[in-house]
């Protein structure tokens, strides 16, 4: 059962199917072969994910899918987490598909996996801040100038949802990545996913290509979905990390005895077990909160959960690497990749410090 959530029969089947997919198709050596290739094959599993119906699970029936609820998001993220996928399922479908749908756009191509989106929004530490990138009106077009740094999956995306500061506040655009004036400088993320800096220099977008929606609300909703998604992922990854680590402690012998017999290591393992349960509890809380109507309380609950999941997940990742010893820092060992995925999550949808500052603001802990 995913995070003790009340799941439908379909959601339970989806979880089982995706878990099977991870165990059959996501072994660490095949992943390394794909990601060490030049250029890296970061879409290697994309078609299979689409054939399995993962995009449909992340989209509501109104948008042409069969899911789209917080529980569906949790199931997908939880089941796929140990597979360490770098494919842009969450961003392209779960977030961008959701935003397109909110603006009344067709998401058929996104749901089919034919068109891949990246979300070019965050500029500084905190994506909940309004974008500063300029969108100046010029007749029938907007002219975009500015930088979107290290946009996750922008290397493999065909299209972008871009946020900017327009004449009347924040505005969202649906833009092709090969738009004139847009320079794409690829980079890499610590979990081996792709990214790119996007430099907009006089990029002209027809006014009809802006998303007709309450951009601020749609962005906030997408970010909250993102935070909940990685909370569920962190819960699953912490569980997988502990499973690998505890198994290793029972196998590895030093000083004539199993590592699991050393009390100092038992206590580290106990802390990991505690952390994993805390992460699971907070991920559960976050999924439930996401299902509620927009409110400051909903934001607060999700921010708290995201901070707790970062702290717990990261502690589990670090401890696992330490307990595996030399093998823990080897590229050949899955826990070294789990730890890197936790490091990536810490900086997705804003840095942890930025989330903490925002929580302090919501709570009124500071004097702002």
């Amino acid at each position, binding site marked *: 059962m995913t995070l003790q959530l009340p799941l439908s029969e379909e959601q339970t089947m989806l979880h089982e199917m995706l878990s099977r997919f991870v165990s059959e198709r996501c072994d660490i050596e095949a992943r390394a072969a794909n990601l060490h290739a030049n250029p890296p094959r970061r879409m290697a599993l994309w078609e299979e994910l689409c054939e399995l119906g993962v995009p449909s699970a992340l989209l509501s029936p109104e948008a042409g899918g069969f899911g789209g609820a917080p529980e569906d998001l949790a199931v997908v993220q939880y089941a796929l987490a140990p597979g360490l996928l770098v494919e842009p399922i969450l961003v392209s479908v779960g977030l961008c598909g959701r935003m397109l749908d909110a603006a009344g756009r067709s998401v058929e191509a996104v749901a089919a996996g034919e068109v891949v989106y990246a979300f070019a929004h965050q500029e500084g530490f905190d994506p909940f*801040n309004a974008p500063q990138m300029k969108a100046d009106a010029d007749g029938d077009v907007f002219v975009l100038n500015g930088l979107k740094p*290290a946009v996750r999956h922008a290397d493999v995306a065909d299209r972008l949802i871009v946020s900017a500061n327009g004449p009347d506040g924040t505005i969202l655009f649906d833009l092709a990545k090969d738009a004139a004036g847009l320079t794409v400088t690829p*980079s890499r993320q610590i979990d081996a996913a792709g990214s790119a800096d996007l430099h907009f220099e006089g990029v002209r977008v027809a006014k009809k290509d802006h998303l007709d929606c309450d951009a601020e609300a749609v962005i906030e909703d997408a970010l909250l979905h993102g935070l909940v998604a990685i909370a569920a992922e962190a819960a699953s990854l912490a569980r997988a990390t502990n499973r690998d680590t505890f198994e290793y402690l029972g196998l590895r012998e030093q000083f004539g005895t199993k590592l699991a017999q050393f009390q100092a290591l038992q206590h580290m393992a106990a802390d990991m077990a505690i952390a994993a349960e805390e992460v699971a509890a907070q991920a559960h809380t976050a999924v439930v909160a996401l299902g509620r109507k927009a409110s400051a309380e909903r934001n607060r609950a999700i921010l708290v959960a995201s901070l707790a999941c970062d702290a717990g997940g990261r502690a589990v990742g670090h401890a696992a*690497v330490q307990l595996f010893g*030399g093998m*823990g820092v080897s*590229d050949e060992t899955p826990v070294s990749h789990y730890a890197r995925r936790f490091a990536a999550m810490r900086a997705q949808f804003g840095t942890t410090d930025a989330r903490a500052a925002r929580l302090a603001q919501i709570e009124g802990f500071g004097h702002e």
Partner: protein
Amino acid sequence: MSDDSIAEFRAEVRNFIAQSLPDDIREKVRRYRDLEKSDYVRWQKILQDRGWFLGSWSKDWGGEGWDPVQQLAFLQESGEAGAPMVIPYGVSMIGPVLNKFGTDAQKERHLPGIISSDVWWCQGYSEPGAGSDLASLKTMAVREGDHYRVNGSKMWTTEAHWADWMHCLVRTDSSGRKQDGISFLLIDMETPGITIRPIVTIDGQHHTNQVFFDDVMVPAENLVGEEGAGWSIAKFLLSHERLSISDTGPKLRLMGRLRAMNAKVQKDPSVSAGLKAILAQRMVDASVQIETLRALEHYFVEGWAKGRPAGADASILKVRGTEILQALSELAVDLQGPYAATHDPVDLHADVTGEGEDSAAEMASAMAHQYLYGRCWTIFGGTNEIQRNIIAKVAFASAG
């Protein structure tokens, strides 16, 4: 040495590095690039020409006979100023061992290459089944006439792929106490039967290796000391490492980088006052930690010079030094903001000779490298769990 003359010596080291460190190496270090073997060799030769390469060796061995305080001053200034570290496997490890335990023939054969940095060494200690429990090592050396036949494998052999020779712990006897059956052997890496398998670490780089020995024939004259003396020689060797164990120089340099990055964030109008306050608090914590490490290191080293028993000092420095590096590197990554998850291992090898500064993504890669490789330090060289066992043992013993 008096405080004044130490301050003078520190200034002399800083000046020398400012004048003598080749520009390309200086630039690589400043931009946190991975150094090549040839960079280390070049710098070590420059130090040897200056008469500082053998600073810690006694005058009997042809060194400078620096006391611990002066050795520490040199290490700190070099690290903070961005000079490459001196690779320890030759001059700091096998060199002192040969001076102390080697035959005249061994000294004659090996010391010149160590002193000139023309012969490169690696350290074959850990094995797949013998990490923390080093005494359980199984690589066998069986005497056959005037040779040892060596079979087995060594793990985490850093820079084995650069090495001409390995100083290696092998098992020559399995009958008695594990430690008593270990011998210290010098192995030419060109000997038939040696295979090196690269190991890529969590930072995406190749620094370390597994080395396989398949019927490798090593001349018996390459045995250092008696058969079975390997364990005590290894302990002697590691005692020479205690001065460099907390390695504050590079950490102080990283702290300088943190200060610069934080200053930039604090000036950024798009960053909220709340976030600035959180980062400022984290900077305070980092600063207190690194300054405490520096104080602790001075306190111990001055103590040793005055006859303080070393006790668990080296273990304390290892635990704090490595864990503080991890804390600094975590903050270094978090300060990258939108680039905080950016890391491309390739960036560590990017050219530095052209015009222009590193991109934000390249700088982030460098800090992510510090973070990822930082995970290794609490494991390699005796895990921090083993160090804590030692600290507790000494602490309990002293309580009587």
